[in-house]
């Protein structure tokens, strides 16, 4: 029979997990590594709060999914509705719009923190996520876009994701095209659903299949753009030209991208770009076959131009092979077990050399076995000793 007291205290709500050992230390390292890269590029750290007022009902997403994804509750102090943050980007944009309104532009800000969402997508079932990112506010020029993409790939490379595939898109491209077709609202909704699912069958029946070239526009960035120039209507000429410039600039900067970075484009893509307006990108880790970052150009609530990126801890852990379910119990190669006879001063010396020193609290009969039991790869018996491998 199972101990019901244990399951009561150990069971967590779905989408929430205890991160142990490697998982927790990986998230910590990701946070410090990525933020220090952002700092090196001149991005200043901000820490917006966990919750904000949310009296106004959230506007439903345009795709009609009508899902509200923030946890909401009543503030016992103000009696107003609060929402726990589900995304830090709008918070940073709000900061730029309010408290940092007078700060010189372009404003470079970075952040890292936990976000919570009620509706986890099936494949990303985590409801608590570590979000790390940077925003460049007051500029959405080509130079700013290139800076953000290069910064994102540098951060990912520093985090250990060495090969990247950068997938470019234009967040409202299909909307522009749809608007020019003057479809009925029902047809337009169908067209959007069909585009999201790359559903040729349904899209072929809307406006005599006019939108079908959008679905073909996926692949190597250069080829996609060349094809699109010929097949897309005139209303889209401007976005296509802008994307072409972005590709040319990125190709020119290929020395600053990790080696073998692939540049692809998918002009039908609009997922995860709900607030972006214009060029947007997703970054995939080919080795782990997973998405690891996204970003693009957007407007703050006050209408200021901005661009930025974010990455999530759970996706990066997946890309780095630090799986949620697998608990590693291998000995820590950097850890040394110091027997109780070793002085605190000697332990401090070793720590200064970079060792992780686990000092014995009592005198076990076999210090070597004790080192092994505590997952240390080395041991040390006295002050005169050096760490010895097991």
């Amino acid at each position: 029979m199972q101990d019901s007291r244990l399951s009561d205290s150990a069971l967590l709500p779905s989408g929430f997990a205890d991160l142990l050992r490697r998982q927790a230390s990986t998230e910590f390292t990701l946070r410090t590594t990525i933020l220090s890269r952002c700092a090196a590029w001149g991005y200043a750290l901000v820490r917006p709060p966990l919750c904000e007022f949310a009296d106004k009902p959230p506007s439903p997403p345009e795709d009609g999914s009508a899902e509200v994804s923030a946890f909401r509750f009543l503030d016992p102090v103000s009696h107003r509705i609060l929402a726990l943050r589900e995304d830090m980007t709008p918070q940073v944009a709000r900061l730029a719009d309010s408290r940092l309104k007078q700060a010189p532009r372009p404003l470079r800000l970075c952040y890292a923190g936990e976000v919570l969402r009620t509706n986890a997508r099936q494949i990303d079932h985590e409801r608590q996520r570590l979000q790390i990112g940077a925003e460049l506010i007051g500029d959405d020029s080509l130079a700013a876009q290139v800076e953000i993409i290069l910064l994102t790939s540098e951060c990912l490379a520093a985090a250990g994701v060495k090969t990247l595939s950068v997938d470019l898109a234009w967040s409202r491209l299909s909307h522009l095209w749809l608007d020019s077709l003057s479809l009925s609202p029902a047809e337009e909704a169908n067209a959007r659903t069909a585009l999201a699912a790359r559903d040729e069958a349904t899209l072929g029946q809307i406006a005599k299949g006019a939108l079908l070239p959008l679905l073909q526009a996926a692949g190597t960035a250069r080829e996609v753009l060349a094809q699109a120039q010929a097949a897309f209507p005139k209303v889209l000429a401007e976005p296509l030209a802008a994307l072409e410039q972005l590709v040319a600039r990125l190709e020119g900067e290929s020395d600053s991208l990790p080696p073998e970075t692939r540049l692809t484009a998918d002009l039908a893509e609009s997922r995860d770009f709900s607030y972006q307006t214009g060029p947007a990108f997703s970054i995939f880790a080919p080795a782990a076959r997973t998405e690891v970052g996204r970003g693009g150009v957007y407007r703050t609530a006050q209408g200021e131009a901005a661009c930025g990126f974010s990455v999530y801890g759970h996706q990066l852990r997946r890309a780095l092979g630090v799986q949620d379910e697998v608990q590693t119990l291998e000995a820590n190669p950097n850890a040394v077990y110091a027997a109780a006879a070793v002085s605190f001063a000697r332990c401090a010396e070793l720590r200064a050399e970079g060792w992780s020193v686990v000092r014995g609290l009592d005198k076990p009969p076999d210090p070597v076995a004790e080192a092994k039991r505590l997952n240390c790869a080395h041991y040390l018996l006295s002050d005169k000793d050096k760490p010895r491998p097991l």
Partner: protein
Amino acid sequence: MSVFLQAQEQNRLVFAVPRGRILRALRPALESLGFAPESGLFDESDRRLQFNSEVAGLTFVRVRSFDAATFVAFGGAQIGVAGTDVLDEFRYPEIYAPLDLGLARCRMAVAESRETASQDDPASWSQVRIATKYPRLTRRHFAARGVQAECIPLSGAVELAPALGLARRIVDLVDSGATLAANDLVEVEQIREVSLRLIVNRTAFKLRQAELLPLIDRFRQEFASS
């Protein structure tokens, strides 16, 4: 490195096909398109689950129809076949469904016993109890017309539910209507048309286009007319 990652790193493509009725409908196409999967794929008494094919690096897996979509959504399989019934039930955002294969066409419908139907006015419903394999799709369908559906999830023999008093009504696939008739049920409302789709995992589509596009093209040529 974990076993999970090793499996992912193998450079093969996995094609998920639903077993049973759908696989029988799909067989001629899979054979005429030159994939030539091992014949065991079509032999349900063959207990293996993975089958090689003539196309280098392409493996077929035979799974339950609901699972074909799940394997593709989570990237266990990169490409597959699933009915629009299953796709609509799960609405996995990770799945692209480019082609309508036009096979195994049928419809999703609400049915109830002949006796209930004779006195029932579907327009007056405010809350209904429904036995179904598709609880999410059912709830969404009824919510859209202002009716709250309480679903009793079953994974088969749904037509038994009204006779045994589980629920007055069912939501299920209807092909010829013979199963409904044999259980003294009548169709009272059609929810959607159903047919088979070729499906592709979103991340695989981005990263392995060079391998996937030729496969999709083979299907496109075969099914362009349908």
